[in-house]
Structures are given as structure tokens and as C-alpha cells.
């Protein structure tokens, strides 16, 4: 089972592919600037690790081994320590994800209101299981614990926007809208990390 609560650590470990020819990735000046801004909120550099990973992910969509290396070098904290943080938090992605990450709430209220049925619907529509990304690279489906909107269950979150009182038809509509949006060729996030 590979829900978002249980990141596939196994996969995370498997990156000895990157041998001596590893491409060195550097942080962009924008990323550095944003990380530097965080320093004032923390006692020491090491504590900025999580924020730095978030910033890098915002710009690059996910945190690759090379990005991890770059953050580790920039903050001067051991890479293993940073990996420990990265693999602990479910919202840090150590594998590439789609442009739209669907967080489907699987907590009690949503369960009562039929989230399992909706999940099946999404899975069939997109032909992916939780933890997987559609072939066109647009959607990734992940399960999540309570999103705090129980009175409007079932709910899911796509990126940062909430979708409430979900029904079969609203799901169809949301997914089609997103597909259309990306088909028009305007990406949603800044994917241009140098």
C-alpha cells in the first residue's frame, strides 16, 4: 500500500544511479533569496531545512536528489539529516508528481460520505492508483488525512484549492476543467528552475 501517509521510502533509497556523472544542481538566486528570508525566523541554519525544501519544491515541482544535495550544501547540514526531514513530511515530494496533485481526504466524515466510491471514480477516470501520476503528467492522486472541512464532506484538495461536497459529476467537471486548462498549454507552476 502506498498512501501518502506512508511514503515509499524504498524508492527514496534507490538513487545510486547517479554516479560520478551526476549533474550538479545549484539553487537559483530566487530560491536562495527566499531561503535567506527564512533565516530570521529560526535560531540556526539547520532549522530552515524544511522551509528550504518547500521553497525548492515550489519552484521545481518536486525535490530531486540533486536539489537535496544543493540545499544540503547551501545550508551546510548533512544530506542524511535533510533526507530525514524530506521523507518525514508527506507534502515534500521526493519523486516527480503531476502538475495537479489531488489530495483526497480519507478521514471519518469523508468516509461516511462516500470518499471510497469517489476514489474509485477518480482512479477509473484517470487510470491511476494512489501514489501514481497520469501518463500525460497532469494528475497525481494521493490520500490524505482530515482536511478540516468535515461539514462539507467529502472533500479533496487540488494544489491549494479546496473542492467540497464532491459528487460524481463535480469530480468529472473538476478533472475535465483541469485537463482542458493544461491542454491549452499554460502550466500552473513555475517549473523553470535553472
Amino acid at each position, binding site marked *: 500500500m502506498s498512501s501518502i501517509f*506512508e511514503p515509499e521510502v*524504498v524508492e527514496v*533509497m534507490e538513487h545510486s544511479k547517479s554516479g560520478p556523472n551526476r549533474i550538479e544542481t545549484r539553487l537559483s538566486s530566487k530560491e536562495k533569496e527566499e531561503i535567506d528570508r527564512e533565516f530570521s525566523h529560526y535560531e540556526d541554519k539547520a532549522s530552515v531545512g524544511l522551509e528550504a525544501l518547500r521553497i525548492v519544491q515550489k519552484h521545481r515541482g518536486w525535490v530531486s536528489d540533486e536539489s537535496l544535495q544543493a540545499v544540503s550544501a547551501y545550508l551546510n547540514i548533512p544530506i542524511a539529516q535533510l533526507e530525514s526531514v524530506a521523507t518525514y513530511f508527506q507534502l515534500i515530494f521526493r519523486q516527480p508528481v503531476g502538475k495537479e496533485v489531488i489530495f483526497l481526504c480519507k478521514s471519518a466524515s469523508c468516509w461516511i460520505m462516500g470518499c471510497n466510491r469517489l476514489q474509485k471514480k477518480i482512479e477509473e477516470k484517470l487510470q491511476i492508483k494512489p501514489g501514481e501520476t497520469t501518463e500525460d503528467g497532469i494528475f497525481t492522486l494521493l490520500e490524505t488525512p482530515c482536511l478540516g472541512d468535515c461539514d462539507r464532506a467529502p472533500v479533496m484538495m487540488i494544489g491549494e484549492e479546496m473542492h467540497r461536497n464532491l459528487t460524481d459529476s463535480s469530480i468529472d467537471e473538476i478533472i475535465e476543467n483541469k485537463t482542458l486548462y493544461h491542454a491549452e498549454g499554460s502550466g500552473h507552476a513555475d517549473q523553470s528552475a535553472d
Partner: protein
Amino acid sequence: MPTITIDGEQYQVDDDQNLLSACLAQGINLPYFCWHPAMGSVGACRQCAVVEYRDAEDQRGRLVMGCMTPVRDGGIYSVNAENAREFRGGIIEDLMTNHPHDCPVCEEGGECHLQDMTEMTGHTNRRYRGSKRTHRNQYLGPFINHEMNRCIACYRCTRFYRDYAGGDDLQPLGRNNQVYFGRQRDGMLENGFSGNLVEVCPTGVFTDKTFSEHFVRKWDLQSAPSICEHCAVGCNTAPGAREAGNGQDALLRRVVNLYNRDINGYFLCDRGRFGYDYVNSDARIKKVLAARGDEMIGSTAGAGDRVHGEVHPREGVQKFAEILAAVQRGQRRLIGIGSTRSSLENNFALRQLVGGGNFYSGLSARDLELLHLVDRVQRDDRIHSPSTPDIENADAILILGEDLDNTAPRISLAVRQAARNRQKQQAKKLKIPLWQDASVRQLRGEHSPVFFAGTEISGLADVANATLFDAPGQIALFADAIAQLIQGSDAAAMDLAADRRELAMRTADTLLAAKNPLIISGCSSRYGDLIRGAGKVATAIANRTATNCALYLACPEVNSLGLAQFFSPGRGHLEQLTQELHGKERDPLTLVVLENDLYRRADPQTVERILSCADEVILLDSLLNSTVKRADLIFPAAATAESQGSYINSNGQTQRFYAVYEGGGYIQESWRWLADAASFCEQITADLSVIAAWQHSMDLSEAVAAEFPTFEALEKVGPDEDYRIDGLKVARQGHRYSGRTAVRAKAEVAEFPPHLDPDAPMAFSMEGIQSPGATPLSANIWSPGWNSNQSIFKFQQGIGGARKGAKGPFKIRRQSQSIPDWTISAAEPEQDEEQLITLPIYRMFGSDELSASAAAIASVIEVPFALINRADAERLGVQPSQLWRLHTDGNSYSLRMHVSDTQPPGTLGVPCGLPGLEAVSSQLPGRAQLKPLPATETGETP
């Protein structure tokens, strides 16, 4: 002392501890995983649940975690209450849902804490039928296997590796049911204490990879208390050996820690744990070898090198005896060279054979002087040599020129703990018990002050508050300045650079303000004034505070300090020997070399001069080395694990090691070869008859003690061979030792008698005393229901106390003598544009002679390299990783250049003893020229 009630019984327990350790100390079996006596509690595993009652009226009580509950005077607890037992059983059942059913093929099986605890809770039937989570394992280097599926997520590994030992490449990854303990990517664990994971992990996630190569179950190992021979700290070990089963010689199969509160406690370094394999190496000498008269055609041997063939031991001993006879008749001279890596007994035997005046240390004048200096300083009553717990208690530490992680690793681990003392003080103020590990470690603030001044600092860099990198001469001046400041000299009058003066003042103030100041120095810089300087600082503190001051002086080898005691200062070094051999009308000369590779001790030319004066060279040693090539007669000497004897550690502590097993082939202790030769002599003089009469190792120990009052403790340090407990010897094999006939059944089905041990009150069999509680001679740490090394607490005087029955520590007896008021002056010659000053640096793997022949260690030794300062590199045009050639007097070496920011300018750090660099090591510190490799040679790949 609080009194507590557990299941109706009253117990008096120590203050300031938790309920779990109180229970264990009382012999109550309470299961646990995450607690460790040296690392305290974090309450991660929930395994040690007990019921705590409010008062005598309370019948229900509540579940508490033993390890997280402070003992309360008058507290009433129950370990056996039904709900506590059920809870603990439930925890185990949960842990086991993911644990594989692989005990029969798991190397932890038979000494697995998880097995023991599972048995203890009575969880014998698995109800879980679902699938188990699985992990992929990592390659962690040549020492440690990784099998993550077995993990129960107790966090002990990272708590030891990261928190206790300061490693930063092993972390908990992921979360929930998927927690993974590993590195960010495959690769060797970088910390030099990684081997302890094997013992710290309560199950089989981390196991000893060198042991896997020749694995047997714990119960099939035969064991005895031994001493690690790979540095001078003197850690106690429990090596395990067993027959090969294929008719080959018995193998030494592994080394585990043997608890000694005063030295190693629960932990060993990786050199000590994995270095044992040299005794199984192909370079092992197992037969008597004699040089053949004829030159071998087409031989690649160099000039003067001998070609050897095997001879029967009787023939070899006969030859040796003939030489002794000639010596008796006055027709021959006999000179003996002892060794800092051989026991007192072996050295003494050789000394007796050749006579005190003909006995040499085998060390250069510089190295022997350093040992005498250490001895001289330690004789001062104002100074005391601290045990490991003393070091851990220090609240301000000054390290002078000693890269502890590579020269005395276990001491480095102790310093790392000492660095936490300020944090512990703060915890005490806040009334946080010190065993509350996570809470104490969370306290912010600076480390306790650790000042480092020297050439290189490896592992301790992260706890050092201030570092000063310079050549030893400058460090000695710096130490001298601190000593003067402590005595109240005026800082302004000192000839020191401003920043250095400021650091000296800060150091002096900090040391004076400390309750337990500690100075650490030693021989590794090969610079006498550094030891003098350290002595001056320590005595200055002692004078000011009117209590004695702790000073740890690290010696280079396992018996360095012991051997030095045989010589008065200024005598017994190789230079003196060279002088002695030259310019005299001489009789034919026989040189007997005891377990010493002279080519590591002096430059090749000096060794050549010595060897060329000898008409015969007789060598007793365990491994083939450069000196072997020049020997005429070679006797196979027993390694530490195969013999009995005594070593003196850096602290002046006398310790005895016992034979774990009998060496293969014709291996025996060096002194036995000497005694054999003496008894083969036809005309036996009184002196020789004494030697010929030695039967037991203890005969020698007693003789040493009688001749040298310094070593009087040798008679007390352990019982003699006649000692018995209830009429029995101590068994080296456990109750469950299996297959003692089957192991040889291919050739012979009859029960064979065990080897006899003439030296120790111990048997090479299962027969005899088995209990580690009855005597510290038992190294098989095992208690019913406690098959892993965790059982050591059963044999301690209180948790973390001394081993039951342990005596000592036995220090060597030395006449007390105040150190003189040494003047330390800048003796460094002017810098030379052409030449660089070469300084010795050390590596945990490679600098030690014997462990470098252990297969796993040999695989990670760096290629010959040198550290160069960045500015020098730029000046000379040195690129990182480039090969350059180092020219010393008459010799040259190819070195891969590493550019360093801390290597003092104008100097070159050259690793001492590294294979390929043995010969240059004796000339460090010195001068040398660095030249680019000719273009034809640079094509070489690393």
C-alpha cells in the same frame, strides 16, 4: 536511598534513576528495547510497561513506562500485574507483525535481544496473517550488513550513531510503518564507531559483515577475556574463535566488546572490532622458516633479501640452541630487540636471554624519548591519568596535538560525551533527570569547552569550541603560554600573536574555572616539547587549584609504556644499537628480533646498517613484513588472541589477556620459542636454566614482577594457572557448544581431548565454570533468558558499575617525581623555500600495523596521500588528487595530494604507517621536498 515495593517485595534502590534500570539492577527481568545503559531513555518502544500504584489502597494502579518513570521513595509498582504483562505482550505482538520469520538464517539468532524479549513476554504464537512491509537494504561498507526488514524501530541505532558518536550519515527516514534507518544513499558508514551498531541494535538489522565471512552461532564460539592490540587505550574485548570444520586451522571469527567500566565501557572503535582478522590473513606466519643458502634463480628479491623454506620446528630450535651455546662459550654476541606490540612477558623473556645490556627497544631515540617523557610526566603526583569515566566527567578539555579519533579512538568518544556536560548541568538545574535522553539533548546552548591545538582534528571538530592549527613546535609554545598564564604571568609580556594570546588567555581562564579540567596530549606528534607543555599546563593547574589535574597522554602502541619501563632514559634505542655495532672489534653477532618490523622504526639505511652487522637474524613474528625478508630463521609467534600475557596501557594500567584459542600450525608465544631454544642447549648455564624452566605464562609474569618492582601488579592482576572455582577451571566454551565430535567426524569420530591450557585457570572446552557472574575470566556474556550482550547488566555492580569480581585498576608502580621546570623554546628551523616540513597524521585504518592486514580494513585504507595547505598548493601548482613525489634523504614516495584548509602553511601532513609509507613514517616530523611526477608516471590511475 529510596525504598520501593515491586510485586510486594521491598528494594533499596539508587537515587536519580528510572524504574527500569532499578528493576534490572535488582535482577528483575523487565523487557526493554530502546533504553540503553549508556544512552538513557526515550520511551520509544513502550516495552517496559509496569503498573504504578498511587498508594497501598490503590488496587487498580496505572500503566507507566519503566524507563520514563523516576523511582519514588515509597513507590509501589508491579511488574507481574496481569494488565502490564498483557500490555507488554501486545507491544511485542505489534512489533512482530512486520518482523520476518527468518531467525534460522539471521546472524543475530542466538544472541538476539528481540528473541529474548519475545520469549520473555510469552509471545509464542503469531496471529497476524497479513503481508509484511519490506524494505530494500543498503550497502554500508565492508564492516556492516544491513537488513532493514528486521527493524523494530527502537531508534537505538541513530541514537548511538548520531547522538552518542557524532555520525551524520545514518538517519531515520520516512515515518509511520515505513520508518527506515539508513544513509541518504548507499555507501560506507563514515563514523569510526559504526561497528557498535552490531551490538546496539537489539535485532539483526546491523550485523558484523566480517563475521559473516566465517559465521558461527554465538554458542559455538569459544571465548576468553582479551585486550585490543590496535592502540594503547587497552580496550577489553571478547574475541570468539572456532575450528574451521574442514580440517583447516581454527579461525578467529569476530571481536565483541567486553565491558570494562574504566576503559571501554560498552563501546569499541572500528579498528578494534574489525582489526582482528589479521590473524587469519594470508600473511600469517605459521611455520618455522629458515633462509636457504642457495640464491633462487630468477628471484625478484632485492639485495640482501633471503629466500626461505620451511624447516621442522625441532631443526629451527636446534639451530637457535647452537647459537645460544656459542654465546655461552663466548664465541658469539647476542643482541635482542624487543617490541612495543608484544607482551611484557615476551619482552622480558628476550631480555633475560640476551642480558639487560644487550636488550634494545627497537624504537628510534625520538620515539623512546617520547615514551620516557610520558612516563616522567605521569610520575608527577600533581597529575593523574584519567579513566574513561573521568574523561567523560571533564568540564573543560584542552587537546594538544592529538587527533584522538585516529590515535586513541575510544578516548575521543569519551571526550564527545564530556562535551555534553554543560548541557547536563543545565538539565540538573531544571531538575531533568540525566537519563531523560531526548529532553536533555534538546537543551540549547554551547558545548562544554573543548579546545584543540594541533595539526589535524578529525571526528571531534564539531564539539571543539576553538581550534588552532599549527606545527607541533608552535603548539608547544602555545601550551607553554597557557601554563605561564595559569601561573599568573603577564599576558602582555608574552611573545605571541594577538589572536593566539587571546585564545591562550581564554583557555587558561576556562581551565582554571573548571571543576574537572582535563588536558590531553600524547606521542603522535612525535614532539617532546608538546608532552612537556602538556605536563606544564596540568601541573600549573594543580598548583593553582591545590588538587591534582587530569592529564591523558596517548601512547602509540598497546605495550609502549610497558616496554619503556625496561629502559632507563637515553638507553635502548636503535641509534645506540647502531653505535654499539660499529667501530668495535666484533665477534660474530646474532640479532634476535621480537615481533618488530624494524623498517617501520627507522629509515631503511639505518635498518640496513643494523642488519648488515648481524651474521644471523632470528625473527619471531606473526605476520610477514619487511624485516622477515632479511631474517635467517623465523619462528611463528602467537597473536594476542592466541596467547596470554600483559600489556600496560597509556594510563599505566596493567591488564592481562588470555588465550582465546590455540593458534594453528606451529604458532606459540614468543617466550616459548626462547624457552625451547634454551632447553635445547647442551651446556646449560644457570641463566639459561631459569629460562628453560619456564612452564607457564604466570611463571614469567611473576619473574617480571620480581625483577621489576614497577610491575608488581602482575601478580595480582589475575589468578595463576592453579586457581579453581569449586575445583573447576573456567570454561571457554558455552553450555551449548555444539558438534565437538562432528566437527572432525570426516577424519575421526572419536571424541578428542581438548587442548590443555598450561597458562590460565581456564579450559579450552565446555567443562568448568560457565557463569560470567562467578568470575571476570568468563568472557561469554550470557545469562538464562538473556542471550545477547545486553545481559552484561547481570554481571555489573549496579547498572553501569564495575564488573562483578573485577579487581583493580592495577597501575604500574612508579617512584613519584615532580617534573622539572622545562623551558620550551621555539626550536623550529627557518622555513626553507625548497622544502616542506613533513608532519605525521594518522588514520584509524592504515596507521596501525596489524589491523592493516585485516581483509575488511585493508579494503578501505586510503592510497598513500599527503595533506597540503591551500596556499602552498597554489604556490607549488598542486592540483587536488594529483600525484606528486616526496623526496626525503635518499628515498622518495608517490603521494596523492589532498588540499586542506587546516594543514599548517609550509607543512605537509603525511599519514603515519599507511601501507606504502611505512618507511617514511619514522622520519616524521622531518623535511622533504615535493616535486611533480615526471610526465611518464602521471598516467597512473588511482
